[in-house]
């Protein structure tokens, strides 16, 4: 997994609540058996005028000029600013894969769909919960100041304005933080407990044999 330590990036605002994973990456692109290549179809239905299908040359498709990621000032954005319940809906990990593949490294929102939130950490993509008032402030400032950037410092658990005028602290559970900072393979970590897992399994099998038949 890619490490996440400090990230300084351009911010793009997606000002709507309940952005579901069907919008982040529509179902027709879930047929891939790979983890990469989803970026060109991120927010496909909002981003392009036509209906996207796998195998199209996305560079030739007509863009919806009003969609935020199509606006020149947000080209190269790596931090997404969003509203409540971002990533609700299906469990498809293709959602964080497509955000990462597009170039995003983090999303800032007041709340998240639970499965999306979990999936993100497994991929070096950082979903940050901020207070609604902080998110409001960021939506204001990103609109007011072209080229608006933020600096995310995971070790310090802060989202800061590069000029140091403002900083927001965020919470993250220590285990996820440790894995992200070091780019750790969670399966490897869990397998350190292989003996405990085996012992648990034996006890469970003895008590509830019907679960193992």
């Amino acid at each position, binding site marked *: 997994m890619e490490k996440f330590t400090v990230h300084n990036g351009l911010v793009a605002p997606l*000002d709507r609540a309940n952005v579901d994973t069907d*919008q982040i990456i529509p179902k027709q692109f879930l047929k891939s*058996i790979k*983890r990469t290549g989803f970026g060109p179809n991120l927010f496909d239905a909002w981003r392009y005028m036509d209906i996207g299908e796998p195998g199209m040359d996305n560079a030739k498709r007509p863009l919806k000029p009003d969609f935020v990621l199509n606006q020149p000032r947000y080209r190269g954005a790596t931090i997404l600013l969003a509203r409540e*319940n971002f990533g609700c809906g299906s469990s498809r990990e293709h959602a964080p894969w497509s955000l990462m593949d597009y170039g995003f490294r983090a999303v800032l929102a007041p709340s*998240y769909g639970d499965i999306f939130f979990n999936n993100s950490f497994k991929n070096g993509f950082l979903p940050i919960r901020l207070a609604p008032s902080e998110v409001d402030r960021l939506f204001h400032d990103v609109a007011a100041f072209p080229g608006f950037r933020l600096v995310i410092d995971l070790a310090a658990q802060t989202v800061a304005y590069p000029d140091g005028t403002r900083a927001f602290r965020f919470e993250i559970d220590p*285990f996820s933080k440790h894995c992200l900072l070091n780019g750790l393979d969670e*399966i490897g970590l869990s397998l350190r*407990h292989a003996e405990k897992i085996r012992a648990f399994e034996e006890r469970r099998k003895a008590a509830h044999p019907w*679960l193992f038949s």
Partner: protein
Amino acid sequence: MGPQTLYDKLWASHVVHAEDDGTTLIYIDRHLVHEVTSPQAYEGLKLAGRKVWRPGSVVATADHNTPTRNWDQGIADPTSRLQVDELDRNMKEYGAKAYFPFRDRNQGIVHVIGPELGVTLPGMTLVCGDSHTSTHGAFACLAQGIGTSEVEHVLATQCLVTKKSRNMLVLVEGQLGRGVTAKDLALAIIGRIGTAGGTGYAIEYAGAAVRALSMEGRMTLCNMSIEAGARCGMVAVDDTTINYLKGRRFAPKGDEWERATAVWRTLVSDDNAKFDRVLTIDAREVSPQVTWGTSPEMVLPVDARVPDPDKERDATKRDGIERALQYMALEPNMPLTAIKLDKVFIGSCTNSRIEDLRAAAGVVRGRRVASNVRLAMVVPGSGPVKEQAEREGLDRIFKDAGFEWREPGCSMCLGMNDDKLSPGERCASTSNRNFEGRQGPGGRTHLVSPEMAAAAAISGHFVDVRNWS
């Protein structure tokens, strides 16, 4: 130890290892696998040179990509076929307790076949790379949807890294009225608490109305927990649970059945168990529900009118309503019963079980699909559901009325196969998500119960099924 909730019990009995910050390794008893969210997980195992910890915990089927007609012709779409073939390969290489491939007579939606084959049993932890895994909580399981990295993790370690959720009790008092179903109850709950209302909670559904539900109804209710934001929903064990499981193919038999049921009987919340949040619903006040927008929380009783954004004071919510009405091509204040349909879909892991089909057939019997409805289709949840329905003659009732009777699968719930809405088409659907484009790019989805979908197909527009004669 003080009194425990059902969720507390399920959690405590599966903890393998806990870190100081609450990060916990819980043991997984059952792992359901389908073709869309598993290929990258098996690939990950292969790249790391890891093996599957306990293949006997895995039960797999192909459901999302499979066509619902012309099975003899195979899968036409090469990308869909690739995923299904990849599952075939992975099952051959890594093994499973049972695999029901495309065209097997037990193939079907993973959340339908698990319970009907008895591979879902009370007291289990059960995961699947699919958010509607919450369905299995109807059997007092700790059942939750996971992402592909977690699928790989469970395959490799038989454990999930997670943290304990908070407890929420949804207490449904009284009894649902005639024509009001578990689907309406689920939608009414989501309408009340919102699509994020259950985030961070494990929901237990209880009360007289829940006790009165069949297992099919309980599955519908638990299925929709994720639409309320909760990863898992559950119902305590009672006679209904045990009677449903008796004799199922993979359920325990003989002495083991006796031992198992004795354990299962303990899978209830203790008296005075503490819940972090309690929501009380009066079942008698629940009406048939219809969603009008692009999120399951955008739902109202069938006799209501489409909301007026001008009456909403919160700016983000007002924007959301305006955007939804524009996408759905609806006018503020129009009656929901004035909404005309182009298509009707009866199916999905929410509402494709035998009881759902019986209920819909009861409404349809002896009538014809309205002329403005271009396609009305019934997609049974599994091979056995289809066979049972055909034994009961339900297929004839649907076909005589002008419905198409299809092969089992996820179908137009998400349109990964050929079954989808065209841009602008409007559908009454018994599925679980009315997100933009969910049933096909530009398609417009209204979520309803099977009875409401059936009545809408016959009438050509929504009607209050309580008045159906």
